[in-house]
């Protein structure tokens, strides 16, 4: 059913497959909550939300937002 090579974290990422794949810096951050495939509600340019930066709020991250420096940034893995 599932290839056993995936680690649990990789499997989780596969389930929560994002709607887009871009080279935005936030994709490499572990606090990103991406818009997952099949979501209809969010605006088309959103790649997801940041769970960390404005806690207890989700900060909407549009694709064209250029992030140069971020205090909440933590690289995955």
């Amino acid at each position, binding site marked *: 059913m599932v290839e056993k090579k995936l680690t649990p974290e990789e499997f989780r990422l596969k389930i929560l497959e994002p709607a887009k794949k871009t080279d935005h810096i936030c994709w490499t951050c572990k606090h990103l909550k991406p818009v997952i495939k099949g979501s209809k509600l969010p605006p088309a340019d959103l790649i997801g939300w940041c769970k960390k930066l404005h806690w207890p*709020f989700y900060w*909407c991250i549009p694709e064209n937002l250029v992030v140069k420096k971020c205090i909440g940034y933590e690289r995955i893995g």
Partner: protein
Amino acid sequence: MREKVKPEIKFEEIPGPEELELEKMPYEEYCRKIFDPKKTFEKPEALKGIRWLSCTMYIFTPHSVSNLAELGAEVIKVEMPRAGDPMRHTSPFNEAYLYPLHDTRPFTGTGYGYFHANLNEYYISLDYHRPEAREIVYNLVRMSDGLTECYRPGTFHRWGIGYKQLCEINPRFIYVWGGGFGYGPKVFGGSYDILGQAQGGLASITGFHEDFGGHPVKHTNWVIDWYSGTMITVGVLAALYWRRKTGLGTMIEFSQVHCATRACGYGVPLYGRFGIVRQRWGNWDTQLCVHGIIRTGKSDYPNDPNPQLREEAKYVMVSAFQDEDFRELCYVIGRPDLWEKYKTHKERLKPEAQIEIYGALEQWASDKTRSEVVDILTDAGLLAMPVMNDKEVYECQHFRERGTIRWIEDPIFGDVLVHGGFSVGLLSETPRRVRWVWRPVGADNVRVYHELLGYPISQIKEWYDKGII
């Protein structure tokens, strides 16, 4: 006999009645006197003289009218003949019924789900969409101050009894439509409470955070129904005041989903300013720490056969967010290191800190019962309260003495426990009251159609046989 010489008292020196009373009585005693629940029925009613029609179903719109009836308005509830409001049948299960529903249905009762949404009302039955019924509705409207209905938008308009038609019959008429979405892109959307909680944005911030496996949660009870019903009442009272000034009626168009948005608090405006969306934070608080609900190890009722008492009476609300309080809490639970680590409120508010602090609290409480935890923390001068269930609310002396819950002798259904609207505020001069909880379907048909509108008994009998009433 010599007349007794009365000492001369100057008028200015006589204390006025208010000062006299206030001087004599401490505040507590004063409140006990003016709000005494036992004196409720000796006092007048604020809305006496208002007659209202309630063409409503379920909880949301009926509750808006029930508020008026508790404050003294004469409310006529119109139901479908022989069937009644569907809420009568949407009750907790297993015989939680009060019989009878209607004379022709002796085996059917009205469920407890109907409670508190239809107090003090008069019950008639009428099938509005029969052409014969239109004249009856018009006659009722001529003698009434307002109407509340909950059908799909425009339904009453189509049946010839909408606001446009009724305000020509009675220009002072106040018309309330209450429903899901109202006019606009979602005009055909009906509503339930859960839909309101979901659509309004409330459910998305209720429940635990997704990082802890949480999902959006709705409240177990229909809170938005009760809340938005009360908000309609506020609109009605404003409309009544407006009518007093201008002599003109109003149409109130009330969409339930927007009430849930109001209950979201500052979330939506903050989105408008910063483009950020609020996260869930469950039983903890996003602005204060420690300020949440924790689970203790042992129940207060370890041997009770009821699992809700045996397994669930374990939760305690704890609040100690000021620095001194938090320090005290850390010493009480034997973790002074936490105080050393998180000395400022800003530090302990961080999610990582909250996870550690609440974890330590629950670990400390894991070998204690709920009441032990409450006692220890209260003795230390901290705020702690058990999470009470219905049984404990019933047994709470504070609620009993203030009349928030009370037993009444319903004229038809006997002994019933009510909490009514006493909880929204006690009015010293015109207290809210519950005379009866509800009456069977069509119980006041003769009273309203014959005694109020003057239709002959033979006519009523004919309508009844045809199924119009």
